[in-house]
């Protein structure tokens, strides 16, 4: 144990806490930066001010800082680092297979203290050296090589910051560990370690049993939208115009795009269905369970629920659930490191939209709607809406015919 009076005065201890906080923030930044798949080249970074932390030009991505902040409460910096702060790096393939590649850990080991180090500028200087070691080591683990290939291959690297017990099991049976230096301070030894998997064979998709969830959108086959797309396609061919962004072919089964974090989507949908009075879904909603009570073990029942939800016409556009993830739902969501698509691709727009939707502030209205007094009103409204929807559904064929007719007449008049 580090001695209680490790620092002679309180301001030194406060300064040490502040330095440690920034060591953690910058450490996470360099780890995530190294997994973006971007080679750092000369003059690739804009010259920053001369007051960079630890005199190192380390990126300062707000998203990464936020992720660190969530795992490292400002009022419990040393306590949290004593109980370990982790950055998990994982890979997800286009087919939905996922694998945790490595786990970086920052720890304050109280048994490794050194009371002789008193000067705070020396502590600061040595923290800079420790960060240099993290930067150096981050280039030699297999995840670095994999992340450099993610722009050309069909997989994406994700990261996640959390504190507490490390989830080492996710790395498989064969794990290697590297310590990227240790800085002994009066309050204990600060060290970054990385544990990484050495077996990279992807096990078969765990969700084989839930493959029924791969939706085939036959529902739209006769829809007017489909007819319009077809007629537009024909026109394009006639005009010999090749448009780079074709409309989505609804004949193809819906698939998760490479960037989609299906757990986040699943959670968002769940929240959405619970909070917003969507007809039908509401009628089928289960008693609300707190998020923390749901664990990865309950995946099979959730899968079943999702199957039933997907039958509803209103939820046909939901992303299909392809596999059950390794992570519990109460854990913080993974952040996307890099969109593996060109900037002007429509999928990018969709991703941006989704992100904005997901990050949107909480609506007060939703809270009000959740009030018990309002529940009855909502149910009544739901029943009305459900009746309306049933009516419309029964008239679907009529609508289809009407629209197809309109399209035909529009084409004739166009010609």
């Amino acid at each position, binding site marked *: 144990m580090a001695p209680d009076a490790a620092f002679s005065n309180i301001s030194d201890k406060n300064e040490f806490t502040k330095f440690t906080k920034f060591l953690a923030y910058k450490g996470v930044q360099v780890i995530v930066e190294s997994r973006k798949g971007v*080679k*750092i*080249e*000369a*003059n*690739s*970074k804009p*010259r*920053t*001010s*001369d007051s*960079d932390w630890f*005199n*190192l*030009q380390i990126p300062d991505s707000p998203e990464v800082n936020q992720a660190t902040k969530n795992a490292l409460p400002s009022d419990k910096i040393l306590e949290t680092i004593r109980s370990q702060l982790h950055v998990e790096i994982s890979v997800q393939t286009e087919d939905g297979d996922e694998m945790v590649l490595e786990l970086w850990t920052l720890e304050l080991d109280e048994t490794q203290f050194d009371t002789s180090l008193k000067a705070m500028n020396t502590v600061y200087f*040595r923290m800079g*050296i*420790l960060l*240099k*070691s993290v*930067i*150096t*080591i981050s*280039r*030699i683990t297999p995840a*670095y*090589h994999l992340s*450099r290939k993610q722009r050309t291959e069909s997989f994406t690297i994700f990261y996640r910051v959390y504190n507490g017990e490390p989830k080492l099991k996710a790395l498989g049976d064969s794990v290697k560990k*590297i*310590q*990227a*230096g*240790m*800085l002994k301070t009066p309050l204990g030894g600060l060290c970054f370690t990385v544990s990484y998997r050495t077996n990279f064979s992807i096990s078969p998709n765990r969700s084989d049993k839930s493959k029924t969830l791969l939706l085939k959108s036959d529902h739209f086959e006769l829809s007017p939208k489909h007819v319009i797309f077809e007629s537009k396609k024909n026109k394009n061919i006639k005009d010999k115009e090749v448009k780079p962004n074709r409309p989505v072919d609804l004949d193809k089964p819906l698939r998760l795009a490479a960037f989609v974090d299906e757990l986040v989507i699943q959670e968002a949908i769940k929240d959405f269905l619970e909070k917003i009075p969507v007809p039908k879904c509401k009628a089928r909603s289960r008693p609300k369970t707190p998020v923390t009570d749901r664990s990865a073990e309950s995946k099979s029942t959730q899968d079943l629920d999702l199957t039933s939800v997907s039958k509803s016409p209103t939820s046909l556009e939901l992303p299909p659930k392809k596999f059950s993830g390794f992570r519990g739902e109460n854990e913080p969501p993974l952040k996307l490191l890099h969109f593996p698509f060109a900037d002007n691709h429509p999928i990018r727009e969709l991703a941006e939209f989704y992100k904005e939707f997901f990050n949107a502030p909480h609506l007060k209205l939703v809270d009000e709607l959740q009030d018990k007094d309002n529940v009855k009103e909502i149910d009544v409204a739901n029943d009305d809406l459900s009746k309306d929807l049933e009516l419309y559904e029964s008239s679907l064929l009529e609508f289809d015919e009407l629209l197809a007719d309109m399209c035909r007449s529009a084409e004739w008049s166009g010609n």
Partner: protein
Amino acid sequence: MNARSISFEMSMEGRQVDEVVASIFHTVLFHRSSGKFTYNNEESYSIRTVSYIDVDCDFIDFTYVCCESEALGRNVKKEISEFSDLLRTASSSPPRGSISLEFFQKRRARWPFQPECVPWEVWTVCCELTESRNEHDMHSQHESVVEMLQDKIVHITEIINRHEYVPKMPSRSDADLIFDTSYADIQPYLFKIQYNLSGAPPTSVGNTVRKLIRDTLSL
């Protein structure tokens, strides 16, 4: 004073020499360089930021990090290339040689003597050239070079983070005795790269200077 001496023995193909040595030396230099000092007065200074870049090797599947400084990169490359050329044209079989990155500090001496150079840390890479008999052989050798390099990089960070001896931060008038202040964008500790083909570690600057001084005094 005894300098801390770290020696790595590695075997590699001739074409890999430059990159293997550069990976090790640049990793050390990245840790042993700070941003440029700006002294406000004799004792107080501020330090500018160090930028770093990734370097992908051509002949080994390896990426290392080095300080973003064109001049430093050029100087290190020049020394390593000269050593590599010499080693690859050596007649001994198998060709062997060693190259050292030596950090030293200067001690002022009375006129007419030059300042004494006292080494405090020496990193030596002893290279032995191998020849692959077939493609499989080449492949496995390549892998072992990469693995060895990874081990060395971890070892370097381990040693540097022990913080055993590094010269104290100097006052303004002594800055040139500790740091190489000739670079515009970076400030490494004073260092020198030396090499020879005998297999024995190169003679250190300090020893040579000390010997010179002794010889001069004995006259």
